[in-house]
């Protein structure tokens, strides 16, 4: 690398390249950061929505069962079936969106239990494989109680049989909400790490760039500016007082060529003067 132009170009290109690379990496890391943030926010929002829907469905189911069991109002059967389907739909959605699996398993078991209980109470329902086992395990029914009065037996069924399971269900839904939030904590910590990772490259690049700019300044001064000043001074000395022109340059570049040319010019001038 001989020319001043090349050196200066490479110097500046290095700085530009450094800025570009660090900028790109920061951009990449910021992209990651943005995705993670978005992901966490959307997970959190979806978790809230699902928990809210589950609570709503379970509450409606409970209301329907209360009317059915205590007051014997058969028109609530539809509401009971619909709310149960909605509850199961929410569960399926949560499972498909990879929320806390352990929590969902226990929630699912309680929902199956509640469905089996209500189906047994209503004396029918679809005998699907999913609920068959649960229904078989449920022994608590009006017949089991041996109470002839339907309204009394229904109230007892609701209070002693249904409500504890309903309470358990709502607790589990709340737990589902909390646990999902807890599982978001490490991801939030990762977010912090990502934020650090997007800032660190820029800071380090800036430090290196400062070092390079200082070196650049130093080298330009030592190898370009100072020789020119020396040449100028020495040439001035020769022209004014005929002092010998003696300037040494280290690099093989235009500065050296200029120096050599000045020396040649002085030599020619000296020869002309002798003639």
């Amino acid at each position, binding site marked *: *690398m001989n020319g001043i132009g090349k*050196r200066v170009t*490479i*110097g500046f290109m*290095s700085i530009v*390249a*450094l800025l570009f*690379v*660090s900028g790109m*990496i920061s951009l*990449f*890391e910021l992209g990651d950061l943005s995705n993670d943030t978005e992901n966490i926010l959307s997970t959190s929002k979806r978790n809230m929505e699902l928990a809210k829907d589950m609570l709503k469905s379970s509450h409606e189911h409970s209301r329907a069962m209360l009317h059915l069991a205590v007051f014997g109002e058969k028109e609530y059967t539809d509401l009971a079936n619909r709310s149960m389907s909605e509850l199961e739909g929410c569960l399926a959605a949560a499972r498909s969106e990879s929320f806390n699996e352990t929590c969902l398993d226990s929630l699912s078991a309680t929902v199956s239990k509640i469905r089996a209980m209500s189906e047994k109470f209503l004396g029918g329902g679809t005998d699907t494989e999913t609920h068959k086992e649960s229904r078989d395990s449920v022994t608590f029914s009006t017949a089991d109680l041996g109470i002839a009065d339907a309204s009394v037996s229904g109230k007892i069924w609701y209070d002693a049989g249904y409500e504890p399971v309903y309470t358990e269900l709502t607790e589990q839904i709340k737990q589902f909400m909390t646990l999902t939030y807890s599982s978001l904590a490490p991801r939030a910590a990762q977010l912090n*790490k990502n934020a*650090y*990772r997007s800032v*660190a*490259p820029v800071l*380090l*690049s800036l430090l*290196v760039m400062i*070092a*390079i700019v200082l*070196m*650049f300044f*130093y*080298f330009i001064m*030592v*190898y370009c500016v100072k020789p020119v000043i020396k040449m100028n001074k020495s040439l001035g000395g020769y022209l004014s007082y005929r002092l010998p022109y003696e300037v040494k340059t*280290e*690099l*093989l570049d235009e500065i050296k060529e200029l120096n050599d040319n000045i020396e040649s010019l002085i030599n020619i001038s000296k020869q002309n003067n002798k003639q």
Partner: protein
Amino acid sequence: MRFSIILRYVGTVMLCISAFMAVSAFISYLDGMDSAFYPLLLSALLTLLLGVFPMLFVRKADAINNKEGFSIVVGSWILASVVGMFPYLIWGGEFNLINAWFESVSGFTTTGATILNDVEALPQGLLFWRSATNWIGGAGVVMFALLILPSLGTNKMALSSMELSSLARDNYRYRAQMIVRILLVVYVGITVATTLLLKLAGMRWFDALNHAMSACATGGFSTKNASIGFYDSALMEIILIVAMLLSSIHFGLIYATFARKSNNIFRSEVVKTYLAVVAVCTVIIAVNIYDAGVYDSFWTSLRSSLFQVVSLISTTGFATADTNLWAPLSIILLMFVSVTGACAGSTSGGLKIDRMLLFVKTLASRIRHQQHPNAILRIRVDGILQENEQIHSAMVFIITYVVLIFLGTFVNALFGLDLITSFSSSVTCIGNVGPGFGEVGSMDNFSSMPAILKLQGSLLMLMGRLEIFGFIQFLFIKWWR
């Protein structure tokens, strides 16, 4: 002194470091582009630019003087530690600014002390980079510069005379160019052989390479939290013991032995003394820990004792046992070997057995002189007559070394560390050993230490690696004129 020339040659070292960072990034890439890929790649680029830049302007020097050579060595080590922390800093995790600096200095000075609580959490690229810092440091940043410096003769001598301790230089009977070849052949040879043997003993390729690099540099960085204890393999321990022993013996002597020269390790007084110290300490510790009931069988005690003694005396710092649980006598002996270190002219740190031998001979000579005041007594080490200047210099070094240990202990204690932790962390840092005792024991790390003490530790590591006076001189601005 020409500042531009120093910048150029330090830049050459930066290029080597950049190449190792690129290799580490490639390992990250092979590991499925793990989280260390971008940090390593960017660090490689930054270091490359720092290295290339001076080359654009500064021409190769025909000759460099001692001051310049000296400044290149010290400057390279410090700058290597600075750029070495880039990958850690960008990667994040447990690495903040102080921790990254500590880890980097610990790597390049081949100390092997760590601030990491969970080494295994690091991606493979970063694990390799840690071991690479050990390996680069072990060979001496300067050796890399020597290899690629195209200039002849004077440059190399000026650099090598600073890199190798003065005692080691006396043992070299080869020309300056040969020194580089010897170092390269011995260093790479031991590393390759150790890697292959560890692989054959059942280690994964990646772990084998990392441990081999670390052992040959007498560094001590491991890829496992439990260090070599993770493998619980007698065969691997034997391989590493041999590697550590070889790496802690004068490289010139190893080369001479393999080249069937007369001045080989079997004739060297220093090596004989070194091996005798290892043997005696191993047996005493084995008996002591067996007697104290640390191990059920004597052979297990002997195995553990041998590994720990070799690990600490060679200033490597690998561990197979929690030495904090050993009997007090064993702990004292392990501290003693941490202070003595191994042979000069190797990659190990510490006071060096050469100086200890010279110290003992000077002491004996002094006693004899008291008995026979008119006697003319000469001190020889390995058959080489030691001048008064050399003896004086060795004694001053030993005293300064001990004073620094006590100063370090004082500062540690000032910040609330217990006595054993304070003392052993000073010993381990200045001796470039790695593990100490107490809170910085073989199964612990430096993470719990206050930031100021980590800085102090890294300063001691640099001083130890640069033979104390090298570092001190660098700080005197007056000396630069």
